[in-house]
């Protein structure tokens, strides 16, 4: 039986000046279904969702809510009609309590006084009815990302939303938290609530969505029930052509010189303990583990960004004391942090300024920058890694997410650095950029650069790494040699969680 459409967007076109971002898009969501909206960065997903949410007005086209034409003026207008959105940046007021956040802007009042008791009671009842283990009086800043997400879900439910848009909800969630979110989504679905689910993770789409709509260059290029398609097809729809999976070729590193060795590394005031690891020239080692396994901490310990309690780091078989990133950089070591906006790039500075930063030191004489050398460096990186920008003078914050990530990685890739540590190198980037980043990494390995890559995506590690080290609760629990054929994803997963 065909379910009725809760929302129907017809012939939506949106132009920004001469640029057409959405071109005659027809899009509908049925009652009580989970619809995955897919597309590479810049495909028009967020513009479409902003139109649905009343943030943008379409240039042409119409929206019907349960068969009646509507026009939302702003997000408040949208949620009054039962359409709400959970943004990737969880928009909560951190220093207020859970209840105050849920009732933000519509506080329960007795006279002129905010009735906190009633708000707490109502919120607790709501949270309990959803089976969320959250205290309504707790301050939001003390909660985990997963709980914050639950609060937003609870808020949308309390607003009696009938359609919820979730933008990259799992980008900051751990494995088990993601599973819990899927449970919540299923529960919402049973209540007849429709969900538009946006994610870069293909597996999630198959785990949670009923139907998938793919946007490319502002047009709907495919629409299918999830059970009728597979990952390969989805990726092809998204980028417009077939992709070949990168496969690691088996290499023998036993004869290669050792570049980095960790001996009994212990984190100061932390849980990462007793790490022994060897990295050889041109070798790519993957760090697998669930969130909280200590992958980020380990990388930062090697790089001098996290204090050591004890242990020795050997570079070229000589012990080295690396206690600041500056020393690591001096040893020609680079680090791509997990969050490019927070730690990787200065978004208000230009592409060129960001790319040149790690090498300014060696490209200056007596403190004065050698401008031609720096310019050559920037051109080399921008052209070599196809960072799309109008010029190196463009603000890096104005680039697409994928290109920003390429720059965050590219700043270490001039050829000067010989050990590069990656923390989630493809997090939150679209499939196109992802494949370009894989090319960058493979090319580096061919140039005998040694790398350690921490990633949540096991396939990624299997595609890129010669060896995969599994961390659990701050310790190395297993090591896999990746010969490109025999290793299976379940094997690694078992070691991660088992």
């Amino acid at each position, binding site marked *: 039986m065909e379910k009725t459409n809760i929302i129907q967007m017809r012939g939506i076109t949106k132009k920004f000046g001469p640029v057409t971002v959405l071109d005659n898009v027809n899009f509908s969501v049925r009652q009580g279904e989970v619809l995955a909206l897919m597309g590479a960065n810049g495909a028009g997903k967020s513009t479409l969702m902003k139109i649905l949410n009343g943030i943008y007005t379409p240039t042409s086209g119409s929206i019907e809510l349960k068969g009646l034409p509507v026009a939302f003026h702003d997000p408040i207008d949208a949620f009054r009609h039962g359409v709400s959105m959970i943004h990737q940046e969880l928009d909560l007021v951190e220093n207020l309590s859970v209840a105050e956040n849920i009732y933000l802007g519509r506080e329960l009042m007795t006279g002129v006084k905010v009735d906190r008791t009633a708000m707490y009671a109502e919120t607790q009842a709501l949270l309990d009815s959803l089976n969320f283990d959250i205290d309504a009086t707790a301050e939001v800043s003390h909660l985990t990302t997963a709980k914050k997400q639950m609060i937003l879900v609870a808020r949308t439910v309390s607003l009696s939303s009938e359609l919820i848009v979730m933008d990259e909800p799992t980008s900051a969630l751990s494995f088990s938290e993601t599973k819990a979110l899927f449970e919540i989504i299923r529960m919402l679905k049973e209540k007849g609530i429709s969900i538009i689910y946006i994610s870069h993770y293909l597996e999630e789409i198959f785990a949670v969505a009923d139907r998938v709509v793919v946007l490319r260059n502002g047009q709907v290029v495919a629409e299918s029930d999830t059970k009728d398609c597979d990952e390969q097809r989805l990726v092809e729809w998204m980028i417009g052509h077939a992709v070949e999976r990168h496969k690691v070729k088996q290499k023998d590193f036993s004869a290669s010189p050792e570049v980095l060795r960790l001996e009994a590394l212990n984190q100061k005031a932390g849980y990462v303990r007793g790490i022994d690891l060897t990295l050889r020239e041109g070798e790519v080692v993957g760090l697998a583990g669930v969130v909280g396994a200590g992958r980020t901490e380990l990388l930062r310990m090697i790089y001098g960004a996290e204090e050591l309690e004890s242990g020795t780091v050997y570079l070229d078989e000589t012990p080295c004391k690396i206690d600041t*990133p500056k020393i690591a950089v001096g040893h020609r070591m680079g680090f791509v942090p997990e969050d490019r906006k927070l*730690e990787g790039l200065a978004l208000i500075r230009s592409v060129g300024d960001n*790319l040149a*930063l790690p090498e300014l*030191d060696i490209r200056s004489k007596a403190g004065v920058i050698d401008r031609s050398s720096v310019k050559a460096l920037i051109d080399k990186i921008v052209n070599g890694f196809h960072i799309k920008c109008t010029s190196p003078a463009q603000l890096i914050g104005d680039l697409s997410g994928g290109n920003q990530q390429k720059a965050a990685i590219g700043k270490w890739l001039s050829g000067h650095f010989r050990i590069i540590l990656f923390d989630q190198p493809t997090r939150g980037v679209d499939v196109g950029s992802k494949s370009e980043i894989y090319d960058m990494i493979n090319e580096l390995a061919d140039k005998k650069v040694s790398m350690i890559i921490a990633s949540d995506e096991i396939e990624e590690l299997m595609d890129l790494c010669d060896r995969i080290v599994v961390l659990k609760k701050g310790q190395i629990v297993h090591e896999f040699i990746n010969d490109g054929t025999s290793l299976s994803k379940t094997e690694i997963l078992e070691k991660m969680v088992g």
Partner: protein
Amino acid sequence: MILSRQPELLKQTQLLFQRLYRAAVCMKTAALTAFQIGKEFAMSSGNQLGKNSGVLKPILKNREFTIFIILLFMMVVSAIVSPTFRSAGNIANIFNQNAMYGLMAIGMSFVLIGGGMDLSIGSTSALAGMVAALMMRDFGSVGLGILAALLVGLVIGLVNGLIIIYLKLPPFIVTLGTMYIARSVCLAMTKAHPVSGFPSWVVTVGIGKWHGIPIAAAIWIVLAVAMNWVLKRTKFGQYVYALGGNEKAAWLSGIKTKTIRIFTYILNGLFASVAGLIVVYRLMIATGDANDGYEMIAIAACVIGGVSMNGGRGSVIGSVFGALIYGLIVNMLQLIGVSGFWQKAVIGAIIIIVSCIDSLSSSKKRQ
């Protein structure tokens, strides 16, 4: 009655139209010149790393260019409205009178671009000036005075930097504290008695001219150009930008962010000292309550000149334009006889208007 006054009225109206026409012509010329220069800037595309070279490139960036145009426009309008303004003497005066603010704004640019804040420089400059004055009065040594003044600036800057970095306190609070402490020391040192009796030639540095060039202004402009070069062309300068752009990213890129930050405060202290010296040389007297609130004028000059309060953006040259705009407004209001009480209101309005233009143009870009 009315009839008899008609010719005069006609004459006045004619005169008014003549002036307006002249103003329009001037503005048109200014706008065209500006457009040409602007095109050149656009071609040479500013001064960030990795761009092609252009003749004017090191000096200005788009934002500085906007502020330069505003300055030019204000000068043209002032010149038309007031004949006194046009005299070479008056223009030289504007430069000279604002040298101390401009000098402070140089150091302040570094602190603000690095993402910091410093409220202490008004007091620092007063204390530095006072110490120099005592040296000159009691030992008759100008050189010793300069050294002592610079030492005061260096120490206060260093203390500010160390407390901010190692005790991890907000710069606003730390420098508010040192502002009061320095002021107290300055007053207590002489029990609030003014200090005077310096070698008479130092006044030349304060207000004198050399071949028609006002000396204090020359010191300011030369130092500003030099420090602008430091900001744009040296590793240190680029690190200051990186620090203000994203401190964590800068640290992870192998930059000694703590050292760089401390240096910005030291620079600010040193430039406050130089400004303090200039004030003493001008007035030939040092008082405990001197230079009160100058830090705000320096901040205003930076903000008008395009230095971002959030760090990561701006230039020393911008702060020079900012200080000149400030001086120009004060000068014009005096010339056309507006009460001094209204000066600050106008300055305040200018700060807000300039920031509005900035935020509008950048939000337009974002769309």
